[in-house]
Structures are given as structure tokens and as C-alpha cells.
């Protein structure tokens, strides 16, 4: 067996493991670019995971399941948007509350379906492309959501940097007062970005319950929401770097799971620990290059339109 034969399945699994991180983190990039820190990612992912699972369990339509996941993720985010944008509450506490609410609600309503299996998203081999030696297997023998996430990367980047809308979003995150003066609707922009971020977090959750696995497990996100939040910092709030980070983490998870399966003598607990520890190292690294990648200037700061100067 050559090294490529060994690496192929691991890299294929890396893409799968990285996809939920990628989708959730891209969503959070939008929220934070508009100046709203949403620590509710973990909770919104859980809400999406359960909504998608229940929908697929009762109605055999996967599109409906994914829409349900996005709607419920978006609804959870809307609470955060209302509290932080309209009522200008503390963003950190509100986000944490959203996560706790998500954990509680999904644990409450998910109990009935623990151990059940729903219809999941199947692998689709892309014609021609999947026949490419090695790379075809890694990138194009995946499920439909992975292909959607491929498109999401350049799309998110293009929206942020190449459109008027993206310019407005970034302006709101950097200097809401100036954006307001130029006629940008600051509140609407923030709402839109936070809710879109929640919808993507919900979709990321559904990936876990309908593609990565096809079952519901209590707190099945297992901290992926927090890793996604760290990836946003690591990426310097850039969707392209988010993708790189997400696949790196996916690779780590795939490798770690493979080592658990093969049995290397290393403790399962210490192997499971590695993604969290590496995330901390990523955060330390990101804080050391603050000059190049600093957060949006108004991140976490509520905007009081009534207190504009002039």
C-alpha cells in the first residue's frame, strides 16, 4: 500500500470533518464583520442539528430538513440580534445565553429521538471530476453539502470584498457612525449578518446530524461551535483563511479519529483533547500577529444612533 492510498481516505475524511467548522465559521465572519460577536454558535449549531434531524426523521425530504435547520439557527440568532442590536445588551452574555438555551432546548426535545437514525445526505460522485486520480476521491466523492460549502468560500469572499453590500457590512463593523452618515442602515445590516450567520450555523449543525453522522446525540457539536469562533479570529475575519483553517482542523480530527480506530496505544482521551489544545495554540498565534489581522474596530461595541456626533 502506497502512502497515497493511506492519505486518500484521511484527506477525504478531513474535508468532511472540516465542513461543519467551515460553514459555521463563515457565518460568524459575517456577524463579526458587522460588529456583532455571537458566542451562540455552539447553541445555534445544536438547534440546527436537531431541527434538521427531526425534520428528516418525520418528513423524508432532505431539502426541507436543511431549510428547517437554517430557519431555526436563524431564529436563535435573531434573539441575539434583538438583544444586542435593538436593546444594545452585553454581546458576550447574550451569546453565552443563546448557547445555553440551545444546549438546554435540544437536550430537552432531542431525548425522544436519541438512538434513532434518520435518512442522511448521501455521497454523490461528481461525474468526470471524481475520476481524477487521488484528488477526485478527496474532493469529489463527497455529499452535496460539501459541494455547497466549496461554493460558499469564494461566494462569501466575493460578497465581502467585491460587492457594495460587503463594503457596507465592513463599514458598519469598522465605523458604524460613518456608515450611518453615508446612509447605510446600520441596524438592518447587523440584523442581516447575525441572522445569516445563525442560518449558516444551523446548516453546519445539520451537517453533523444528517451527513457526518445520521443520528442525534445530546450535545453532538462537542465544542465545534467554539472552535469555529476561534477559527474566525485565526483567519483574520477572512473567509478564504477560514477555509484553510477549517480543513486543517478537519485533518486533525480525521487523523485523531483514525489513530483511535487503529489503536496506537495513545489514550483516547488525550487524542480527543488535541483539537481543543491546538485551537488554543491557534488563538495564541493569532494574537501574536494582531498588526496584520485585527478585529473589526466596533466588534462588541453597541451602536447608539441617538448619540451620533453631528
Amino acid at each position: 500500500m502506497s502512502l497515497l492510498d493511506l492519505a486518500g481516505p484521511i484527506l477525504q475524511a478531513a474535508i468532511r470533518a472540516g465542513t461543519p467548522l467551515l460553514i459555521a465559521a463563515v457565518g460568524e465572519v459575517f456577524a463579526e464583520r458587522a460588529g456583532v460577536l455571537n458566542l451562540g454558535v455552539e447553541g445555534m449549531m445544536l438547534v440546527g442539528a436537531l431541527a434538521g434531524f427531526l425534520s428528516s426523521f418525520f418528513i423524508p425530504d432532505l431539502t426541507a430538513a436543511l431549510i428547517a435547520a437554517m430557519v431555526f439557527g436563524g431564529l436563535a440568532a435573531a434573539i441575539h440580534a434583538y438583544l444586542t442590536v435593538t436593546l444594545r445588551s452585553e454581546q458576550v452574555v447574550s451569546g453565552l445565553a443563546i448557547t445555553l438555551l440551545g444546549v438546554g432546548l435540544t437536550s430537552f426535545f432531542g431525548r425522544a429521538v436519541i438512538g434513532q437514525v434518520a435518512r442522511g445526505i448521501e455521497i454523490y460522485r461528481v461525474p468526470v471530476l471524481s475520476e481524477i486520480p487521488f484528488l477526485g476521491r478527496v474532493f469529489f466523492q463527497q455529499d452535496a453539502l460539501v459541494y455547497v460549502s466549496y461554493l460558499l468560500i469564494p461566494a462569501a469572499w466575493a460578497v465581502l470584498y467585491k460587492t457594495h453590500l460587503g463594503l457596507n457590512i465592513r463599514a458598519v463593523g469598522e465605523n458604524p457612525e460613518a456608515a450611518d452618515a453615508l446612509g447605510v442602515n446600520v441596524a438592518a445590516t447587523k440584523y442581516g449578518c447575525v441572522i445569516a450567520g445563525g442560518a449558516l450555523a444551523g446548516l453546519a449543525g445539520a451537517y453533523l446530524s444528517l451527513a457526518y453522522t445520521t443520528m442525534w446525540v445530546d450535545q453532538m457539536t462537542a465544542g465545534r461551535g467554539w472552535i469555529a469562533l476561534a477559527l474566525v479570529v485565526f483567519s483574520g475575519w477572512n473567509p478564504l483563511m477560514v477555509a484553510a483553517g477549517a480543513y486543517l482542523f478537519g485533518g486533525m480530527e480525521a487523523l485523531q479519529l483514525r489513530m483511535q480506530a487503529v489503536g496506537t496505544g495513545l489514550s483516547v482521551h488525550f487524542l480527543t483533547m488535541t483539537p481543543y489544545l491546538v485551537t488554543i495554540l491557534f488563538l495564541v498565534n493569532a494574537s501574536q500577529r494582531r498588526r496584520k489581522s485585527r478585529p473589526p474596530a466596533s466588534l462588541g461595541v453597541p451602536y447608539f444612533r441617538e448619540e451620533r456626533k453631528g
Partner: protein
Amino acid sequence: MLLYVVPLLSIALALLVGGAVIAAAGANPLRAYSQMILGALGSLHSVAEVLVKSTPLMLAGLGVMLAFRVGFWNIGAEGQLYMGAFGATLVVLQGWSLPGIGFLPTMVVAAVVAGGCWALIPALLKVRLNTNEILTTLLLNYVAILFVEYFLFGPWKDPLTLNFPMTKLFPHDAQLPRFGDTRLHWGFVLAIMLAAGFYLLERTRWGFAITVTGENPRAAAYAGIDVLRTLVIAVVISGGLAGLAGMVEVAGIQLRLVTGISPPNAPYGYTAIIVAWLARRRPLGVILVSILLGVLYVGGEVLQIETKLPTAIVLVVQAMILLFILGGQVLTRYRVALVREESRSVAA
């Protein structure tokens, strides 16, 4: 007045939402709530159980409060709690007792040191490398729990308990004495005493340094306070208090180290954040909120036993209280004022 109306109204609204959740699960919310209240406050035993649940919340809540005061988002009380339990257990399993007085003093020290060291990591990362503490403290929770589980599933597993991940039962001099035939133990008294100690702390120079550092680090530095030192020490004590919460759970309730010393459906370490936030940074508030949430915990357990409704309802209601209080703070921030039309046009 609004200072009291908003929290009470928030709790009422949160219970209303919780009721809707219970109804959605097909149960009668009024019946469920009366079962919860009766189950939590119906007898001396159940009241003792409420105080049992409130003990780790008070200790960890005081810790989180201290960190909030100094301006450090310590979201890592859960991990610090587990490390405290680990430290206390290590002492027992190694047989490090003091002649005549047993394990308890060394267990307390070990728990505070272990929880404090766990909090030291994100504190140093923040002051030395400017790494945001929210995510590091949180991620370390997962690491701490896995670390403890490694010992429970491996070297510390008691061979007599077959395959259950738990250590052997602690010897008698490693158990916190209990009151009467209840499970209420001396950890509760310790928590109350520490809360009272906070009022003394506020009157000291160092207590003042903490508050100023949290409110305005620049002014603190100008006043000659070593800001970074104050922050690190306060955060370490914060972690130590959370560690103590872990110690009293293993020494007072479980009497051994097991998985899930903090209920996975509503972990004490996360609830401690809610406690500190609702207490408005006051030690008395920590005591009251902890007891209130203790009622919720015991009520939730009774509800699960009697109606099979998952205890996760506890976390749902807690999160809703937090959300409503956050929203309600707008009311305390602004005041509605009636202004006559003419005077307004004149003023304009």
C-alpha cells in the same frame, strides 16, 4: 425599585417560556411547576437538598464574580471545578493526610491550587500574549473534563466497581461531615463564610485594586496599582474558588471521583456564570441566586423522576432568565419621562 422588578419579572417570564416548553412536550406546565416546588421545598430533606445544589454554585459563582470584577471573562469555571475535584482526589489516592486531622485540609489546598493553576493558563496567555480569554477559558473546560476522564477510565478506576468509571470510596476522614441525616455538608458553611469574606475583601486595599482594575485599568495603573499582577492573582483565586466547588462535590456528595460530578444537562460551572451575572457582582446576591437556582435544580430532578421530563428544562429556564434580564436592563438604563409638547418645542 426597577432594580428588583426587572429580575423578578424576568424570572416570571422565564418560567412562562419554560411552561410553554413543558406544554410542548405534552405535559401540564402548572402541574409540573407545582411538582417542582413541592419537590424542592416540601420537606426539610428537600430544602437541605436545595442547599446541597446551591453550594457548588455559590463557590464557583463567587469565583466567576471575582473574575468579572477584575474585568476577566472567566467562562472556564467548569474546567476549574473538574481540576479542583481532580486535585482533591489526587491527595486522597496518594494518602497525603495530616496526622490527627485527616485529608480535608490537604484536599482543600490541593483543590484550590489545581483550580487556580488551571485558571492561571488563560490569565498568563492574556497578560503576556494578549490572547482573548473567553475562548481559551472555554476550550480548557473540554480539556479538563477529558483529562479527568482519562484518570477515571484508566489508572484511577476502582477494580471493584467493575466497569464504572469511578475511584474507590473516600475514607471517612476524607469526607465532609454532614448535618443530621441530610446530604447537606460543611461545604455549604464554607461557601457562606467565603461570601462573607468578600465583604471584608472589599474594605482592603487589594479589594479596591481589583475593582479599579476592572473598571478602568488605565486609572488603576496611574494610581500605582500593578494591573497585570492584580488581574492574574484575582483570576487564580477565581479558579481556586471554582476548584473548591469541585472538591466539596467529591468530598461532600459523591464521596469519590466519578464522571459527571457537575450535571451534564446543566453544568455548575456554566450556571456559575449566570449566578455571577444575576448577582450583580454582590456576594449576598451570589448566595440568594444560588439558592434560587438550587430550587430549580432539585425541582428539575423531582420532575424527571415523576414525569420523565428531561432535567434539561433547568438549563432552558436558566438561559431564559438570563435573556430576559439582559433585555430588561434596558428598562433600568433608561427612564420614561413625560415632557410637555410646548416645552419640548421650546427646548428644540
